[in-house]
């Protein structure tokens, strides 16, 4: 109950203070038109308050300053700024009420002096400078000249700029250059009073701002009030930390010494992040061989078609499906052999992008014009609402593997072990399985033959591939190409025992099972966007193609797809950026163990567990530079769109 109450207070305070400060600032600048004197008082109070708060916060002012390292006592911190702000406000009212030029000059200079002297007197002993005249005069002249120059450049005259510049230069010369802590009170007063005098002179010289000036002030201050909170947040949360990370990536593990690109070099030479030593195993892997056979087939078919009709490799043609499939197989063969954090990330990006986009497109097409279209799409899209942590938990239960003496409670292992039992057993269930498999095989065979007989070359590839795949399964099932199929193993005595797949632990394909989780989530995203794009293709275009005698698949590949290429590009780029940063799934399911490490997780482990800030920052920088080109593309597209 207490916690609930605290939470409510926290929320109200967070939202209330943010709103209060902002509305307050607006009300403050409303006074520009309504009551100039009041505005002067308020703005001077704020100015004085902020300056004194900064001084106090840096422990430069005497007395009730905070004693500990962290500023915890709010009362101690706030007293001097409030009091000082009130004094500044009072002086500002005096200046603002004075119209006569000479009096105004005197009042202005006097006020500035008073404030400067007061600050100088209150400076703590450690902050009193040992002033060196040379530095003091040098900085004052140089910065004053810069100020005057800027004033002239902006066409505002040189005096104002000169006064500001001289004040800043004097401050730098008096406090920034010499040793602090060895000077006297007089020197501290001298250092603080002159800038006060100069700024007082600046205020006293000018007239009270006229109507036009007030209008300009209003516009400019409103712009600041509206934009400043956002810019401040963004600068603190994004700009400064990013630059710091890039800088730290060039320093050693404790951020002490500059080491150049050593961190990057160590990332790319570490076998954990980049291991291509076993490359020759690629060529003997089954995936690769099947992939190459398919690729050769696709090329033969493609070139044959090109000789015949002039185009061989167009999307949706007979060479298209084998080409895509073979590249996926070859990619998987390569990625399962070449290991390491960086290559894992590339594997993630490749797999999730290809499958989410492909499946999303397929579902969008299948659902288009189907009954209960929106219900089907809702179910596919629903995982988008679930957190990645939640999704990881959900899939953990799918991937459970238990001791084979007990029933499997993970669905996938239950199916796998069941299939193993079925194919190695005997009796009616096994026979039923055989019959079903062979019927399916006959079906795909018939579909292939039908397309061949009707010379519908575009429709040959998919059934043919399915036939080969099903045939392999069917033959194994009846024990012709090795013993059975599914989750089992043969004991030394020849006895058949059930066996499970450790989806999460078995390297390297556990990576793919983790990717499945993200594919499960992101397919819905791809589907919704692509579905909207498909529905936006003009019907006249489709009708025209149909009237010209195009088949539905030709309409799809030659009309719809070219119409939605931009959208596919959007989906692909968005997914690439998103997948590149994958973190939660790996963190929750394996925490990078079993060869599933990815950049984002590695970065946190390096920075926190290994306490190596340099390498952690370098990994972050690698992540940054790898998403940068895609993001730049994305942002440019978004700006074009809007």
């Amino acid at each position, binding site marked *: 109950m207490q916690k609930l109450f605290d939470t409510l207070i926290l929320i109200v305070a967070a939202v209330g203070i943010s709103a209060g400060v902002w509305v307050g600032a607006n009300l403050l600048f409303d006074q520009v038109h309504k009551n100039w004197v009041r505005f002067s008082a308020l703005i001077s109070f704020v100015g004085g308050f902020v300056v004194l708060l900064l001084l106090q916060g840096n422990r430069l002012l005497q007395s009730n300053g905070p004693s500990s390292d*962290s500023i915890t006592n709010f009362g101690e911190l706030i007293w001097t700024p409030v009091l000082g702000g009130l004094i500044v406000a009072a002086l500002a009212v005096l200046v603002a009420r004075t119209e006569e030029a000479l009096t105004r000059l005197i009042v202005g200079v006097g006020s500035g002096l008073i404030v400067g002297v007061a600050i100088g007197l209150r400076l703590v002993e450690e902050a009193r400078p040992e002033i060196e005249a040379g530095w003091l005069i040098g900085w004052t002249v140089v910065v004053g000249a810069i100020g005057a120059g800027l004033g002239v450049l902006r066409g505002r005259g040189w005096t104002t700029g000169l006064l500001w510049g001289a004040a800043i230069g004097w401050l730098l010369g008096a406090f920034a250059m010499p040793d602090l802590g060895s000077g006297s009170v007089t020197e501290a007063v001298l250092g603080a009073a002159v800038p006060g005098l100069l700024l007082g002179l600046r205020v006293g010289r000018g007239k009270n701002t006229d109507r036009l000036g007030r209008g300009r002030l209003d516009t400019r201050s*409103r712009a600041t009030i509206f934009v400043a909170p*956002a810019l401040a947040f963004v600068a603190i*949360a994004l700009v400064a930390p990013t630059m710091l990370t890039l800088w730290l990536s060039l320093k050693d593990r404790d951020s002490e010494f500059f080491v150049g690109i050593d961190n990057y070099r160590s990332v790319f030479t570490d076998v954990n992040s980049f291991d291509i030593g076993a490359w020759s195993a690629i060529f003997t892997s089954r995936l690769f061989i099947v992939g190459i056979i398919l690729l050769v087939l696709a090329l033969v078919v493609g070139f044959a078609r090109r000789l015949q009709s002039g185009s061989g490799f167009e999307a949706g043609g007979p060479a298209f499906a084998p080409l895509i499939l073979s590249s996926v197989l070859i990619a998987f063969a390569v990625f399962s052999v070449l290991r390491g954090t960086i290559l894992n990330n590339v594997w993630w990006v490749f797999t999730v992008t290809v499958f989410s986009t492909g499946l999303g497109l397929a579902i969008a097409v299948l659902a288009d014009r189907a009954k209960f279209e929106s219900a089907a799409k809702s179910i596919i899209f629903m995982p988008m609402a679930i957190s990645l*942590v939640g999704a990881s938990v959900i899939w953990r239960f*799918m991937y459970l593997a238990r001791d084979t003496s007990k*029933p499997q409670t993970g669905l996938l292992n239950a199916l796998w072990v069941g299939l193993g039992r079925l194919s190695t057993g005997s009796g009616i269930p096994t026979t039923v399985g055989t019959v079903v498999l062979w019927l399916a095989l006959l079906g795909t065979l018939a579909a292939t033959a039908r397309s061949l007989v009707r010379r519908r070359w575009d429709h040959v590839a998919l059934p043919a591939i399915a036939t080969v795949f099903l045939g392999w399964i069917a033959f194994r099932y009846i024990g012709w190409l090795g013993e059975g199929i599914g989750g089992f193993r043969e004991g030394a005595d020849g006895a058949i025992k059930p066996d499970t797949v450790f989806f999460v632990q078995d390297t390297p394909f556990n990576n793919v099972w983790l990717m499945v989780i993200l594919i499960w989530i992101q397919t819905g*995203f791809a589907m919704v966007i692509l579905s909207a794009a498909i529905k936006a293709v003009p019907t006249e275009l489709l009708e025209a193609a149909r009237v010209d005698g195009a088949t539905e698949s030709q309409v799809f590949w030659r009309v719809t797809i070219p119409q939605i290429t931009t959208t596919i590009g959007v989906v692909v780029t968005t997914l690439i950026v998103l997948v590149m940063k994958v973190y939660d799934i790996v963190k929750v399911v394996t925490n990078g163990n079993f060869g599933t490490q990815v950049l984002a997780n590695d970065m946190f482990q390096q*920075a926190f567990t290994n306490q190596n800030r340099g390498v952690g920052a370098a990994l972050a920088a690698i992540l940054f530079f790898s998403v940068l080109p895609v993001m730049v593309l994305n942002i440019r597209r978004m700006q074009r769109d809007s």
Partner: protein
Amino acid sequence: MTAALPPSSQGRGGLDSVIYGALRKIPTTVLWIIVMTWSLPTVGILVNSFRRRDDQRGEGWWRVFGDEGGLTLENYRAVFDAKSTNSLNESLLNSFAIAIPATVVPIAIAAFAAYAFAWIDFKGRKWLFIGTVSLLAIPLQVALIPLLKLYVGGAHLTLPLFDKTITLFPDLGLVNTTTAVWLTHTGFALPFAIFLLHNYISDLPSDLFEAARIDGADHFTIFWRLVLPLSVPVLAAFAIFQFLWTWNDFLIANTMAGTNPDAIPTTIRIANLAGDFGRNEHLLPAAAFVQAFFPLMVFFGLQRYFVRGILAGSVKG
């Protein structure tokens, strides 16, 4: 593609038409097989969340009808039991303490900025706007660790030329609090929020603003009385996206408050529950559902806005 076959094949009798009829149903069948497969993991865990511990461990969820104990709410009771160490109560409150400010504050700040970038004429606004939007390119991982250090010890600038150190940002003891988490969310959300709201606000008809100015309204009034009410659709879309993003976030919360059990949101709580796998395995399904409850409510209740928000938010860095 329900009409995947050429029209010429229609209207024949006999076996051929039976085969065509069967082939014609394939796309719909495939679609529903995919849909079923897609929902299986969620269905499985939903069923398991209502089963007793021993039933869960004994047989898979698809054997739920053979359970001896029948269905039970025990797991949900355990998850909401304030006295239990497995309770989600506190982390649910933390999730709200993070998600609500992290939704409201960026909307407000971004709306101000978007309005200024669109309708207040000030120097350098084009470049400031482009600069802000290009920050979308920064993956938040890059900024997280320095930001954490800011919360831990404040920010101090050492002037190399002068050899003096200035405190720019004091140590406010923010680390390991929900405040640190939502402040971080706010900062990271802004470039995208500004971009999204600016698109919308700059498209509002300019006659409206001229008329208001002639009537003597200042920027504050125009913003408050005109722009905010007119921007409700885009604000709602962003709010939904941002709420889901912050509610479901693990990365930022884990970095900023992960080590303080009093400040962690539900996502981390569940990840920790999953961490001691085995002991609390039977509570995970219920916990996961409680965590997903609010997002799913938003999903089913405000689906139109939800889709718009997700689509708009998908480009966020």
